[in-house]
Structures are given as C-alpha cells and as structure tokens.
C-alpha cells in the first residue's frame, strides 16, 4: 500500500499528470476538430475557445467536444457519403404552384422568402469581399499594421460566403413541393 502511495505522489507521476492535464487537451482537441470538414468554421472556433476556459476545466470541456464533433462534424460527413446526392431541380417531379394546396403555397412563399434573404446576405458579403480585396491590393496597405485585421476579416467573409452557399443549396434541396 505504501508503495502505491509512493508511486502516486512520485515526481514522474506528477510530471505525467501535469503533461496530460496541461498539454494534452490542446493536442486532443486539434485531433477532434479534424472530424469537421476542412472549411468548417467550428474547427477554428473550438481551438480559439479552448484558451478561454480555465486550465482545470479544459480536459472535461475537450471530452465534451468529442460529442459535438461526432454529431456536428462526422455524422454529416458520413451521411453525405452514404446517401446519394439529391437530384437536381430539373430532374424532380414538381407540381405547378398554382395547383398546389394553400398550405403548400404558404410553405413555398416562406421558402422563397428564405432563399431571397440568403441571396441578399450573400450579395452583401461578396460586395464587402470585393472592396476588401481592392483595398489590400493598394500599396499603402501592404505594410500597414491593420493589414492583419483586414486579412482576418476577409478570411471570415470567405467562411461566411461558404456557409451561405451551403445553406442556399440546402434550402434549394428542401423545396416544400418536392
């Protein structure tokens, strides 16, 4: 018994515990986020969040993220591979909007409003991206200290554009009439 206690309080054990608790959460989290698709913003988000947590809470929080990544990252990946990609709108059997029931017509109206909103958001994002790119091409911004934040903003806009594009596609695939 005393040998066990001695091992528990020995320096190598303490060093190992410090290594696992202090160093491993970051490594494990970086492995976990690989479950998300390459362009998924949660990859960066989770790594950024890790350092906001108190050191003592990090291992437990990282363990929780495995659940987040399995359902939010891995599951959609597998589902995308298992299921056939949905047919294009031209291949689908659609009914005329005028012949649809009032409930369906209402759903189509909501669907169209959603699509219009996404398209408007995307247009704003693309416009800002164009303006930022033009700014960054100007020589006075080449060595400016704010160049980093402009690039970060551009990076964010690219992610936003990608997520809006995905959302637009998802909405198109869920036409209420199909």
């Amino acid at each position, binding site marked *: 018994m005393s040998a066990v206690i001695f091992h528990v309080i020995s320096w190598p054990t303490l060093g190992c515990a410090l290594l696992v608790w202090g160093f491993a959460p970051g490594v494990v989290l970086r492995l976990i986020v690989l479950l998300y698709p390459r362009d998924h913003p949660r990859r960066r988000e989770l790594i*950024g969040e890790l350092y*906001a947590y108190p050191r003592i809470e990090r291992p437990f929080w990282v363990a*929780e993220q495995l659940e987040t990544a399995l359902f*939010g990252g891995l599951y959609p990946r597998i589902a995308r591979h298992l299921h056939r990609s949905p047919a294009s709108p031209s291949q689908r059997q659609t009914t005329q909007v005028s012949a649809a029931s009032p409930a369906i017509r209402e759903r189509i109206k909501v669907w169209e409003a959603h699509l219009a909103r*996404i398209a408007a958001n995307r247009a704003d994002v693309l416009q800002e991206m164009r303006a930022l790119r033009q700014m960054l091409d100007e020589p006075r911004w080449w060595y400016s200290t704010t160049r980093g934040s402009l690039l*970060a903003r551009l990076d*964010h806009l690219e992610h*936003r554009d990608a997520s809006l594009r995905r959302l637009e596609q998802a909405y198109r695939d869920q036409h209420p009439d199909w």
Partner: protein
Amino acid sequence: MRRTYALVQVALALLDDVGGRHWGYELSKRSGVRSPVMYRILQSMLDEGWLADGWEEQIQAGRAKRPPRRYYELTDAGKTELGAVIAEARRDARFRPLLAPPIAGIST
C-alpha cells in the same frame, strides 16, 4: 426550431445583452447549457438568420497570445424571434421554473 429547455436557457442568455457580442464560453456559463447542446442551438440560430457570427480581431487575439475567437451577435430577426420564444415559454408550464425563479422565503 423545437422549443426546448436548452433553447429557452440560451435565448435568455442572449437576450441578457441584446446588442453585445456573445462568446462561446461566457454564453455556456450564463445559460448553464452544456457546450455540445449549445453549439447545436447556435448553429440552428445561424441557419435561421437569428444570429450573425464574426471573428475576434487578430490584433486583440495576438495580444492575448491565443487564436482568435468566434463571436455571435443577435440580428434584428433574432431579437424578434427570441422575444417570441421567451413570450411563448412564459405561457408554458414546463418553463415556469426557468422564467420565474422562486422568491426566497415564499413556498409554492
């Protein structure tokens, strides 16, 4: 979006600071919702257009010597929709303990 206990908790935390930026850790602490559940709710809110997201400025993150963090902000649609979620929850007996905390010394 399904009206769940966690959704109401996150909605309350978001409406605590209507115009501010919300960060994952603080939001999770304020709402008391586990982070996997909270991230699922935040993603649904983003998809619905109730939230807008952004990244912390590189300079600010660099000063703190850590990667930039993602923040969430309520959109106008989000303020309206989450207000409606709370109003609906007030009428629902399931959410009563959450929205009307018991007053000390008064037994129900």
